[in-house]
C-alpha cells in the first residue's frame, strides 16, 4: 500500500534548500488487528539536513496518525527513538536523511530486534531494563562520607568517561547476535553499566559486580562481534569496555 505526498518539510531549514523525494518503508504491526507485520510505504519530501525522526513525525502528523513510536528530546540524549534504519540500529533523531538516502531513494524503518514488538516501531523495553537492574546499577560505598567530596584524580574520573556516556537507548544490546538467540544474556548495555561502577575508584562493590559478570549470563557470552560498538550512537567503544570487564573478572580486580 502506498500513501502519497507530503506538502512541507519537517525541519525548519531555509526554503531555498533543494527538496529530496523519498519513499519511506515502515514495518507496521498493530496486534489489535494484524496477525503479522507488514510494510507500508509513504512518499514524502524532505530536506537533506532533516532528521529521519522529522520525516517519521511528518508521516504521523499529516499522513498516518496511528503510526506509533517513541521519541522525546530530538537530539540524541534521551535514547527513546532507537530503531532499525536501512538495516542498522540508530537513533532516528541523530540520523540525517542525506546520510541514509539519495534523492528518489528509499529509507526502511523497522523496530529494534530481540524485544517484543508492541505496536509498529515501539517495543517492550522491560527485559532490557531488567538486565540493567540485574547488574546493581548504582554506586555503593557504605563508608562514612567526608564532609566534602571524595577525592578522585582526573585520570580516575576519566576511566568512567565512556561508560557513563551511555543513554540506555538499547541500540547496542538489540544489535547483538548473542542477545537475539539467548535472551538471558545481559547484553552490552548492562555490561557497559557494570563497567561504569567496576572502574569507579570510589565504589566498594567491585567483587560483587565481577561475580555477576562472571555468571553464565555475563561477559563470557560475548563473542566479540563488534555489532554493539558499530551501533552505539554515542561512539562508546563498547567491545573494548566489555574486554576490560572480562580482564577484570579474569584477574579478579579492576
Amino acid at each position: 500500500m502506498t500513501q502519497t505526498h507530503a506538502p512541507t518539510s519537517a525541519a525548519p531549514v531555509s526554503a531555498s534548500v533543494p527538496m529530496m523525494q523519498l519513499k519511506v518503508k515502515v514495518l507496521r504491526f498493530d496486534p489489535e488487528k494484524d496477525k503479522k507485520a507488514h510494510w507500508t510505504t509513504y512518499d514524502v519530501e524532505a530536506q537533506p539536513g532533516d532528521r529521519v525522526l522529522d520525516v517519521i513525525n511528518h508521516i504521523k502528523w499529516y499522513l498516518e496518525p496511528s503510526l506509533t513510536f517513541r521519541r522525546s528530546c530530538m537530539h540524541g540524549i534521551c535514547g527513546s527513538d532507537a530503531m532499525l534504519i536501512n538495516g542498522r540500529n540508530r537513533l532516528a533523531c541523530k540520523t540525517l536523511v542525506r546520510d541514509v538516502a539519495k534523492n528518489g531513494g528509499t529509507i526502511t524503518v523497522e523496530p529494534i530486534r530481540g524485544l517484543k514488538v508492541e505496536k509498529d516501531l515501539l517495543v517492550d523495553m522491560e527485559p532490557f531494563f531488567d538486565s540493567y537492574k540485574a547488574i546493581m546499577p548504582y554506586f555503593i560505598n557504605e563508608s562514612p562520607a567526608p564532609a566534602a567530596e571524595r577525592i578522585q584524580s582526573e585520570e580516575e574520573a576519566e576511566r568512567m568517561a565512556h561508560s557513563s556516556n551511555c543513554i540506555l537507548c538499547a541500540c547496542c544490546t538489540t544489535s547483538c547476535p548473542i542477545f537475539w538467540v539467548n535472551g538471558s544474556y545481559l547484553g552490552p548495555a548492562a555490561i557497559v553499566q557494570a563497567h561504569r561502577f567496576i572502574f569507579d575508584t570510589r565504589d566498594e562493590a567491585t567483587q560483587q559486580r565481577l561475580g555477576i559478570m562472571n555468571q553464565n549470563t555475563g561477559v563470557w557470552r560475548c563473542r566479540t562481534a563488534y555489532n554493539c560498538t558499530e551501533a552505539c550512537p554515542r561512539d562508546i567503544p563498547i567491545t573494548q569496555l566489555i574486554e576490560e570487564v572480562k580482564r577484570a573478572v579474569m584477574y579478579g580486580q579492576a
Partner: protein
Amino acid sequence: MHHRYDVLVVGAGGAGLMAALYAAKGNVSVACISKLYPTRSHTGAAQGGIGAALGNVQEDHWEWHMFDTVKGGDYLTDQDAAEVFAKDIIDAVYELEHMGLPFSRTPDGKIAQRKFGGHTRDFGKAAVERSCYAKDRTGHMILQTLYQQNVKAGTTFYNEFHVTDLLIEDGRCRGVVAYELSTGELHTFHAKAVILAAGGYGRVFKITSNALTLTGDLMSIYYRKGLPLEDMEFYQFHPTGLAKLGILVTEGIRGEGGILRNDSGERFMERYAPTIKDLAPRDIVSRSIITEIREGRGVGRDKDAVNIDLTHLPREVIEGKLAEITDLARTYLGMDPVKDLVPIQPTAHYAMGGIPTDLNGLCLSDGNGGTVEGLYAAGEQACVSLHGANRLGTNSLGDLVVFGRRAGIYAAQYARQVEFPDMPENPERESVDLFDRLRNSSGKDNAAAIRKELQESMMNNVGIFRNGKDMEKQVGIVQELKARYANVGVSDPSRRYNSELIEAMELGFMLDCAEAMTASALNRTESRGAHDREDFTTRDDENWLKHTMAYKDLNREGQVQIGYKPVSLKGFTRAFEPKPRVY
C-alpha cells in the same frame, strides 16, 4: 485500577527522582509516575553544570551566589528562596558526589568548576568559577545518578503512565488519575500527598531546546481547577541554540572562553555588557543577539543567527570538556567547532513561572497565603520564585535537587501525620470526559496543524521582544486555536499506545499554558528580566515589584483573571536592595 501510596510523585526527572528518594527516606510508601521511562526525562539534556559556591577553584561564598541569583532575576526573585537555595546547594552537590556522580575533577581531585553567565565574585565585580560539571553532560549524569539511587532504594515506578487529572476537593489533594499508555486503561492513585515534578512547556514555541514531551500537562491541569499559575510571563530564551534547530548549546561554551561574533566578526557583547561580556545573563545575551540580527548584522542564509567562535581554544578543551556540543554541531550542522564558527540563535528554554509553592514545595492556591493541602511541586513545573524574572545558568539543576529534596522531605512528613483523605465520588469522571470528547469529535481539524500555528504565533508575538499590539493579537489567536481544538478529531480508535490521542490531549494542555502566559505578559506593563516590552522599556519597581498570579475564569471561557503576590525582599540573614541591573 486502584492504587494507594502515602506519597505519589508525578514526573521522573531530576526533581521527581530527588523527591521520591527523600520521601522514601521518610519511611512512607512512595511511587513515581512518569509519562516516559525515567531515563528519558529532559533533565538529561542539561549540559553545562550545577552552580554551588564550593570554592574549589576560586574563592566563593553562598552570599555571592545568593546575590547573583537575586540580581540575575532582576529583583523579582524571592530572597528567602535564594538564601535557602544558595546555602542548600552546597550540601546537595556534595550529596550528588556521594551518590557516585562522576564529576569532572580539578588537578587536586576535587569537583571541577567553571565560569557561567551571571556568576560573579564580590557582588558583581568579576566572573567566578562556580559551575560544577561532568564534562558537558551534567544533567545526563544527574538524571542517571538519581535514577540509579532510586533503583537501589526500590522505588516503585509506573512508567509510561500519563497523568490526566489531579483529584482536589475542598482544598485537599487526594490523588491523581493516570492513563496507562500500553493498555489505554485509567488508573486511580489514592495518596496522602502528591508531588508534582513534570517539567516545563517549551513546546509552545517554534524554536525550542525542549523535548517534544514538554507540553505543560500538570501546569494546565492545575490551572483548569481555577488555581493560579505564577509569573508565566517570564520565559527564558537561551541565547545559544543551534541555528534553525534550537538544540541547546551549553553556556559552558562561553564559560570555557567561546566568543559571540556578528557578520563582521565583531565581539558584539563588549557593547552590551562591558564588564562580563559574553558571560552576561541569558536575557541580556539573547536580546543582544536579536538586536544584532534586527540591525542586519546576522549570519547565515537568512541572516537570522550569529556565530559562536571556539577556534582559539585548544582542541583538548573542545573535544574534552565540550564533547557533547562538538558532536551536536558535527552531527546536525556538519560543522567542526575546532575550526568552524558555529551559527546559533536564541531558543525557548525555561519557564521561570509555574505552579506557585512555598519554600517547602507546598502548592499555593492564591497570592495571600492560601495553600492546597497535601499537594507539593518542584522543579521547572514549580515556581518557588527562585529565578524571578530571569534564571541564571546552572540554577535549574540546582533548583531541582534543592527543592525536589525539600518537597520530598515535607511531603513525607505531612503524610506521616495524616490519614488517607476520602476519595471523590467517581474520581475518573473528568478523565473519561476528556478522552470521550477527543475520541468522539467528528471534526476534521488536525492537531499537528493547530500546534504548528500555536508555536509560530507564540514565537512571533510573545517571544524575546514583546509589545501590547502583538500580544493582544496573540490573545485572539490562542482563543481561535482553542475553538478549533474543540473540533480536533482523533482517527485512531485503538486502546494500546494510542499516541495520536495523547498528542491531541497534550495540545490542549499547551493551549492553556499559552493562554495564561500571554495574558500575564500583556498585563505586565514594564520590562524586567526576560520580559522585555518595546512599549514599556524600563523596569518599574514602584508598580511591578510583585508576582503575577494568573487564574482561569471558570465561568467565562478564554478569560484570565490576574492577581498578585508580594515579592520577598529579604532573606533570613541577607537582603539586597533592588538596584539598576548592569553588568
